[in-house]
């Protein structure tokens, strides 16, 4: 869904518009909750709670176009709070293997690319919730560092620090060079890896 579309639906705030927002963002919101909790039934509950909380507090959303990212923050915070309350790591569902169209097509290059993506996917699933949250917001929701900071109500420096640690962790998991964990530039540009 385009941000403008989402903004319009947020402003309407009636049953039909809420249904449309739900249809557009349900999958990714569930995915965020599931990635942290790793249990379907808990993720379902958290996803429902996140939507309810979002719909009840739509007037608090300052930038209606950022509804998706805001919802992801609510869902990930609810999931993290749930984990803290339960005081246990839910080590459950296996990460399902993904067989992409490229790998099925059989070209070596595409198969290699698919393998790389799969490795990174597994690495991302090993990130702690606070780092996963900022990675999703930057790379999936395309937010800049200061936008993430505003949404999470933390300092930009904290966001940068979490992104850096996330990249370090990914690089370590993937057994890459130290230079692969590069800082983002001011303002949230992706930056160049210093290699």
């Amino acid at each position, binding site marked *: 869904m385009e941000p403008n579309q989402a903004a319009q639906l947020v402003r309407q705030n009636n049953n039909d518009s809420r249904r449309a927002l739900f249809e557009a963002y*349900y999958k990714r919101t569930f995915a965020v909750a599931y990635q942290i909790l790793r249990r379907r039934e808990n993720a379902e509950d958290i996803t429902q709670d996140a939507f309810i909380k979002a719909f009840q507090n739509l007037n608090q959303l300052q930038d209606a176009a950022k509804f998706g990212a805001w919802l992801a923050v609510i869902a990930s915070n609810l999931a993290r709070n749930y984990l803290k309350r339960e005081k246990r790591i839910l080590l459950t569902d296996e990460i399902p293997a993904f067989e992409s169209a490229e790998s099925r097509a059989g070209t070596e290059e595409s198969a290699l690319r698919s393998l790389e993506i799969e490795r990174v996917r597994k690495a991302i699933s090993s990130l702690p919730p606070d780092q996963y949250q900022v990675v999703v917001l930057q790379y999936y929701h395309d937010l800049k560092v200061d936008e993430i900071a505003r949404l999470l109500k933390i300092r930009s420096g904290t966001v940068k620090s979490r992104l850096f640690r996330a990249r370090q962790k990914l690089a370590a998991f993937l057994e890459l060079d130290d230079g692969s964990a590069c800082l983002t530039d001011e303002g949230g540009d992706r930056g160049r890896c210093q290699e």
Partner: protein
Amino acid sequence: MPGIEKMKLTDELIREALQREIDSINIPSADKAWIGIEAKLADPRLLRPVKRRVYTWYRMATVAAACLLVVLGAAGLFRATQFSAPLADSEMIADSEMGFGGADDMAALQVEDLPAEAEAPKDNSVRIFVEEIPPPLGEKDPLPPDWPLLLTDDYALGEAIILFAGGEPFYQGALYYGADAHLLLVKSAVVDEELVPFLDHLGRHLQLDLLPGEKKEEFIVFTFEESSGLARQTADGNQALLDLSGSISSEELVNTALTLD
């Protein structure tokens, strides 16, 4: 594996990996989820936020003291009615009035038989030995301001309350619940008020002694019971952030308060 050691952790790779992650997850039925959401949004009873039970010491003390008050009050009233009438031979009290034994028992009862501490109090007053009952923090605010939904990523808005003074609403507050701590954020609409009188006034509302201490950043740190809080002046009136659970350091509280900007 050939080529893997040359992999660069690029933004594009991370983005694709995240997309694949989301695509790979087996999503449960959206219709079922929507039915649940729609039902909760439509039914006001189901809209009540899930309140995490906060068993703070003063709530437990309130319940215990209330029970003690009822028991002691009943016992004291009973004793007061026993000793209000003089024990004279000429006055025989009917069974129904006494509620026990009756006239025969009264006749048998001699003052010198009673232990000293059982004597009626001279002024017939009922003495209740109970700890001071702290009042509840406030009542539900019917028109809350736009409190932040989240206070950092550790505290979620629980309820909006209003603190009363002399029957008139004075301070608006918001309770935030975290996994290990609970915070109270208070706003005052009075502008240009010095912080020390503000804390004194707020403390009387909360029935807490808020003791001002050192300055940190733009805040004054204050202590109460075995906990701490922060206060500052803003253009819109004073603010205070109290750690109700006593489990956060003042540094962490400052970091949390700074996110309010």
